[in-house]
């Protein structure tokens, strides 16, 4: 009557990581392999398996071997940190929409990879720490789940057992455990390398971005400070600060490239849709955008009496579409440092792509257009801008594979407009 209810405990004897699956299997009296498969399958649902496992590892006490919770059993700090990180990252999945590009089409989202990176780093840390603490001659605990095929063999006779013990002592660890350890360490190191590469790319991107948005002086200041710190360290004989060379280069190279390439992201990010009703509404210094897609639709513009409208556009990375009435002659100087330009049916592409259109022969209404993009596309057309924007303008579009995109019909309309 006073029998205690069965408790969910982390298995001491049947564990691969923290004994959570073994404990659940024991609690439910099912095969632990099934529980492990369940956790792995749950990973595919937004990484739920990882978060659930880590949380259970933190909140579930260890079995002391007799079916009771072990005393003074507190989860290690790194496990708590990992569980909190996993919950923060995985559960509010919708808030991580900004990272969708990272997961790029993976239906379980990019945040999983972030968790894997962090998990790999912590895993490596814990493995190495345990390895350093463990005496080199330690044998696996009795009843460990690190079973080998040999464990399932009938008991050997005494001489065979002595030989086996001698072999174990010489090798200092059973081969299966060593193999697992090597595999795990290899995975962890690979993940760490990926994490380091991602961090490097992130810092480089921030440096390039800061420079392109007019904050290059700050980046340059940081680089100079690191350089001076290196010189000072060198003069006092400290060679251990050489690692500073790496972050200095990661900061300096993108900043230098952006500064030398005159890349400018000033003007913001996003989509801009300008539909001026009169020439007076056009800004004197034109329209500019840092990154994104910009549409300037002049089809509804009331053309002025002097019949000439001047327009400048400047884009960092992205697409500019200028739509004009078909009766207007476009006098254009359109340039893409890298990318594609299409002006009234005439196109150019590649590095320093350019299309120029001369002034009209007569007194036709004209648009004097000066348009630039650092990397991307400029389209000047009398067709609706929607024909060139949106999903249709993806990288799967033939337009991006060098196909002929010229439009003889529109070229003729431009010639007629300029000859009017």
């Amino acid at each position, binding site marked *: 009557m006073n029998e205690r209810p069965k408790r969910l405990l982390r298995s001491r004897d049947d564990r691969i990581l923290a004994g959570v699956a073994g404990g659940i299997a024991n609690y439910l009296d099912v095969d632990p392999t099934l529980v492990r498969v369940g956790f792995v399958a749950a990973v595919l649902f937004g990484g739920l398996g990882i978060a659930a496992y880590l949380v259970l590892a933190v909140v579930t006490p260890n079995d002391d071997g007799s079916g009771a919770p072990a005393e003074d059993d507190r989860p290690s700090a790194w496990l708590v940190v990992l569980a909190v990180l996993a919950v923060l990252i995985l559960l509010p999945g919708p808030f991580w929409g900004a990272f969708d590009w990272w997961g790029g089409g993976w239906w379980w989202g990019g945040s999983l990879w972030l968790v894997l990176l962090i998990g790999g780093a912590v895993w490596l840390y814990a493995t190495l720490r345990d390895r350093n603490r463990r005496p080199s001659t330690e044998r696996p605990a009795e009843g460990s789940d690190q079973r080998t095929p040999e464990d399932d063999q009938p008991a050997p006779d005494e001489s065979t057992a002595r030989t086996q013990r001698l072999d174990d002592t010489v090798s200092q660890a059973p081969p299966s455990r060593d193999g697992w350890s090597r595999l795990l360490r290899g995975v962890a190191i690979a993940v760490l390398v990926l994490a380091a590469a991602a961090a490097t790319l992130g810092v480089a991107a921030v440096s390039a971005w800061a420079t392109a948005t007019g904050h290059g002086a700050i980046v*340059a200041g940081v680089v100079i400070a690191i350089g001076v710190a290196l010189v000072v360290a060198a003069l006092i004989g400290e060679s251990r600060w050489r690692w500073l060379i790496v972050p200095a280069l990661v900061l300096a190279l993108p900043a230098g490239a952006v500064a030398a390439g005159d890349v400018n992201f000033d003007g913001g990010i996003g989509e801009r849709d300008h539909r001026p009703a009169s020439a007076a509404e056009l800004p004197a210094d034109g329209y500019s955008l840092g990154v994104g897609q910009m549409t300037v639709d002049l089809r509804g513009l009331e053309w002025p009496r002097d019949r000439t409208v001047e327009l400048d556009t400047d884009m960092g990375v992205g697409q500019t579409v200028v739509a004009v009435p078909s009766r207007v002659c476009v006098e254009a100087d359109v340039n893409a440092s890298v990318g594609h330009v299409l002006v009234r049916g005439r196109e150019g592409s590649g590095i320093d792509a350019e299309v120029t259109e001369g002034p009209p022969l007569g007194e036709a209404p004209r648009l004097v257009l000066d348009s630039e993009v650092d990397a991307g596309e400029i389209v000047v057309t009398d067709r609706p801008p929607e024909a060139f924007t949106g999903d249709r303008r993806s990288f799967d579009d033939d337009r991006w594979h060098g196909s002929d995109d010229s439009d003889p019909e529109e070229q003729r309309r431009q010639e007629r407009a300029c000859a009017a």
Partner: protein
Amino acid sequence: MRGMKQIRDRVDLTSLVAGAAISVFGALVLLQEEGTIDLEAGWFLATLAAATGVVLLASGMGARRG
């Protein structure tokens, strides 16, 4: 003279040259950003290659010395 030699022996040549090169590079970026100079991409690459060469040279000399 002995003091100078001690200082010279103590200096980490690789860090010194790399630090100087990084400082110069940072200064070039700063001047470019401020519009004082107009460094083109070709000059940028040449400067980078030269700096890398000097640092490698210093590293080799340091290894030989030390």
